[in-house]
């Protein structure tokens, strides 16, 4: 025997630990679906390891958050891959936790004696969603900022406590610096600590109770209800019998676990390497045209919100998750039938099919209903000047008459759509026109915006923004100007 092992064994009884942990007898015939829990754990470890190094290159302040992520992406060796792994593993966490939950639900493994672990699992599910929500904001790009606006606004629709919740989440009434530090603290301090403790409990209970056998082994000759007084004795006998196959935790089960975990991790690293994690332009709180999209696993829920009438929205937004939690928590106490096989539990089967089916339909509808992306701007991030021009466009209410990329416009003014104005007119023409439209069209309904209404500098910035509007192909389309200058201006230009 290995001398180091023997030295340690004499002191801390390694053999005892090995016998209790590794040599544990397991039920035979466990499926590949039984590896989902350990796969989730493996991905969580990946998150911890990558998260620690990400935190070394992150500044939780609106001044520097975006720049620090850019620095990580562009300047730190393997920084982009590191962030990519963390990004994709975050999605994987949600998928794996849900898949694990569905497995436990379908195999009736939440039933006696595993009610506590089911409840802990629900806590873990919400912790993982909390990680996803708080982590989404941290890059402080457009997507992060606007998705968090929507997310915190939804919390604000909660009856009675909505206003309180919004302020609590944002650390103030507006989304800003205090929100970012708050989310950062939750994401890297509180939530990991909570998750760690709950995972430890979850695992300790799995070791104490053993993993649930295949459904058949716990059904033959079982009393009809798990609440029947003779059920615990029956369960004990049936479970012990199911462990007779001579399967050990190590290496029989761990190998399967390891194979699945490795495959998932390889996929994550490949996604990180070849797809990466996106980074949009920095958050711009003045940009009111940005359409935020939540992470894809929240899409079915958002699609549902779109379908309900406005007055019902807050009810559904808060009600559906609440009802879902109550149902999940009540499940092991409410469902006392000792039947475990999915095929013999029609209500469970139809509920799951309904839930998965409707989620899939909603997800599909969400993707189908997505407008073909109209690139309103040059197809690149706007420069500072162009952005301040865009802000002037908003401040001067240009959008109340002119439509840009399907937004604004309307009314009876007959003002032209500006979505492709950059293809039709040069900057010089646009500037002159905004200054005094009557010089160009004697009947123009547009008021003059020349000084003193707004300064020449502001008009120029506005113009610089407008010339970026070139329709769906952005700068790829070659403009063909149809400028006509009145004689007065022409002579001045010469």
């Amino acid at each position: 025997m290995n001398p180091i092992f023997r030295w340690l064994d004499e002191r801390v009884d390694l053999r005892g630990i090995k016998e209790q942990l590794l040599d544990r007898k397991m039920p035979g015939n466990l499926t590949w679906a039984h590896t989902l829990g350990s796969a989730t754990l493996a991905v969580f470890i990946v998150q911890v390891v990558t998260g620690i190094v990400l935190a070394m290159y992150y500044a939780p302040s609106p001044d520097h958050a975006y720049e620090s992520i850019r620095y990580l992406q562009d300047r730190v060796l393997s920084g982009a891959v590191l962030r990519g792994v963390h990004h994709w593993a975050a999605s994987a966490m949600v998928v794996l936790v849900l898949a694990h939950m569905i497995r436990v639900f379908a195999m009736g493994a939440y039933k006696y004696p595993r009610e506590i672990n089911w409840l802990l699992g629900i806590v873990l599910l919400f912790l993982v969603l909390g990680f996803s929500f708080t982590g989404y904001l941290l890059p402080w790009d457009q997507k992060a900022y606007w998705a968090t606006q929507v997310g915190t606004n939804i919390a604000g629709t909660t009856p009675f406590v909505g206003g309180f919740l919004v302020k609590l989440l944002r650390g103030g009434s507006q989304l800003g610096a205090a929100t970012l530090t708050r989310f950062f603290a939750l994401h890297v301090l509180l939530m990991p600590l909570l998750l760690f403790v709950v995972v430890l409990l979850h695992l300790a209970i799995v070791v104490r109770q053993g993993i649930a056998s295949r459904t058949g082994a716990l059904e033959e000759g079982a009393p009809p209800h798990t609440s029947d007084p003779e059920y615990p004795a029956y369960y004990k006998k049936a479970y012990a019998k199911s462990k007779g196959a001579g399967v050990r935790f190590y290496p029989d089960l761990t190998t399967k676990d390891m194979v699945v975990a490795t495959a998932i991790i390889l996929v994550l690293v490949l996604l990180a390497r070849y797809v990466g994690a996106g980074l949009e332009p920095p958050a711009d709180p003045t940009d009111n045209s940005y359409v935020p999209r939540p992470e894809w696993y929240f899409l079915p829920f958002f699609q549902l919100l779109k379908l309900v009438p406005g007055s019902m929205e807050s009810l559904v937004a808060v009600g559906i998750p609440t009802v879902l939690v109550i149902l999940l928590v009540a499940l092991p106490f409410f469902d006392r039938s000792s039947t475990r096989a999915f095929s013999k539990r029609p209500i469970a089967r139809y509920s799951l099919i309904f839930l998965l089916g409707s989620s899939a339909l909603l997800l599909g509808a969400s993707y189908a209903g997505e407008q073909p992306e109209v690139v309103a701007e040059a197809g690149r991030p706007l420069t500072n000047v162009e952005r301040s021009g865009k802000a002037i466009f908003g401040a001067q209410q240009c959008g109340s008459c002119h439509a840009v990329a399907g937004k604004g416009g309307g009314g009876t003014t007959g003002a032209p759509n500006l979505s492709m104005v950059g293809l039709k007119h040069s900057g010089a023409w646009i500037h002159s026109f905004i200054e005094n439209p009557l010089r160009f069209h004697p009947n123009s309904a547009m008021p003059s915006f020349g000084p003193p209404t707004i300064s020449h500098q502001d008009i120029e910035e506005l113009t610089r923004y407008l010339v970026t509007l070139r329709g769906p192909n952005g700068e790829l389309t070659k403009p063909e100007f149809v400028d006509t200058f009145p004689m007065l201006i022409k002579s001045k230009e010469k």
Partner: protein
Amino acid sequence: MEASQVGRRRFLEMVSGIGAALSAVVVGFPVVRAFVSPTLASPPKDDWVKVADDTALLDVGAPIKLSFVVSEQDAWIESRTVKGVWLFSEDGQKFKAYSARCTHLGCAFVWDADAKNFLCPCHRGRFDLKTGAVLDGPPPRPLDELEVQIRESAVYVKYKEYRLGVPARIEA
């Protein structure tokens, strides 16, 4: 245990081991590489900084302190800081430049016009004007001399910072 069972166990252990090692390597590689990245990336290149516009306007025989602004990239934060050099010329043709930080602990030293040498007020270190050698006090090495270039009568200095408090001149 039968031989076939032993063989099966070996195989499973090997598969587990390969899986664990593979996972550790593919995740560990970017993690460790990003962690040690600052030690692998090469330091930013020094550029020549213009410290004076015209040599004709500079005093001859006595040192003068010149301050200039350099852009510093501190990870993701770009900042501008004021740096200084002492410039000295005996003939108005050849110039010597010393970093304006004392080699002991980085204090700004001054010109002691009476003693005709540099005096660091923090721990009373003294340096020779012409050679930068330590005359008195705790500084571990002479003043850090910087390369000087005259281009079209403007003075350029190759500004560098060295590690403080050690006898050897090691770039910081």
